[in-house]
């Protein structure tokens, strides 16, 4: 299957993305999509090959999600929509935890809490909320990494510039690394 571009209701463009990942991106039947060869942007629900991949349009979102019960099958409960598996959105927990070891301070902790909430939302059947939370978690962990790594680098450059050449051992005992 080919990759599609899409326009979200807030006019944000995205893609190209494979239809398998539509649900993860929050693409509904009403979302406009386009690929090479199509004349115009078209609601995803109107394209035959995409019907099984899109989320229901916002006003018909109720009652179509099903979940397997983890207590009975002893397996992770997976969410389905019209029989099609909705993958758990990537919560980027690895990036969030990584940022906490980069002198980023509590920013990384916010990212971890949000990443954890993605799981809670997904397993309680709130798929759209989980997708939005995953987006937010990703942003926080990126900002935490930038805040930690980039600020440390800028700080170091600035100190080198201000102090000239401080002895290495002196510098590292003053500033944590």
């Amino acid at each position, binding site marked *: 299957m080919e990759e599609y571009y899409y326009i979200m209701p807030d006019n944000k463009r995205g893609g190209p993305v494979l239809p398998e990942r539509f649900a993860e991106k929050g693409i509904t039947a009403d979302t406009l999509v386009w690929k090479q060869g199509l004349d115009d942007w078209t609601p995803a629900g109107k394209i035959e090959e995409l019907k099984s991949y899109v989320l229901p349009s916002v006003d018909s979102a109720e009652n179509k999600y099903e979940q397997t019960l983890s207590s009975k099958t002893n397996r992770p409960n997976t969410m389905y929509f019209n029989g099609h598996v909705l993958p758990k959105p990537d919560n980027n927990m690895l990036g969030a935890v990584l940022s906490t070891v980069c*002198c980023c301070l509590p920013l990384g902790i916010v990212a971890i809490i949000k990443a954890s909430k993605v799981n809670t939302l997904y397993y309680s059947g709130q798929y759209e909320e989980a997708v939005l939370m995953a987006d937010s978690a990703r942003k926080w962990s990126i900002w935490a990494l930038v805040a930690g790594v980039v600020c440390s680098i800028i700080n170091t450059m600035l100190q080198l510039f201000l102090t000239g050449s401080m002895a290495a051992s002196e510098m590292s005992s003053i500033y*944590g690394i």
Partner: protein
Amino acid sequence: MAYSKKSVVWNLLICAALFGCIALFYSVDPSDAVWMPKCVMKQLTGWDCPACGFQRSLHAFLHGEFGEALRYNYFFIVSMPFLAALAIGRWCLRGTARLRWAKYVEHRYVVYAYIAMFFLWWWVRNL
């Protein structure tokens, strides 16, 4: 399973960054390199932040000096296994196995415990 071109490029970039970091921290001793990143928090307040010393720990760890690695940052013993477990889930597992792994590794008690230890370690190391 199909992979999009974008995700392949991303994964290659991440791999390159990972090996770049390992090579960097293996070959450079952060204690001797003035240009290695220094913590802003430590400089402004004088307090060690929970991550301070992690670069030196990593250097020691990559050289097999585990005791030394711990001494620079005791939190290393919590964060490294957690990071390794998350990395396994992210890159080595797929499908149901990945979800099942995440159910344990990203269990909310594990996450809360990590956060609690983070702040506890921050407090303890500055006593």
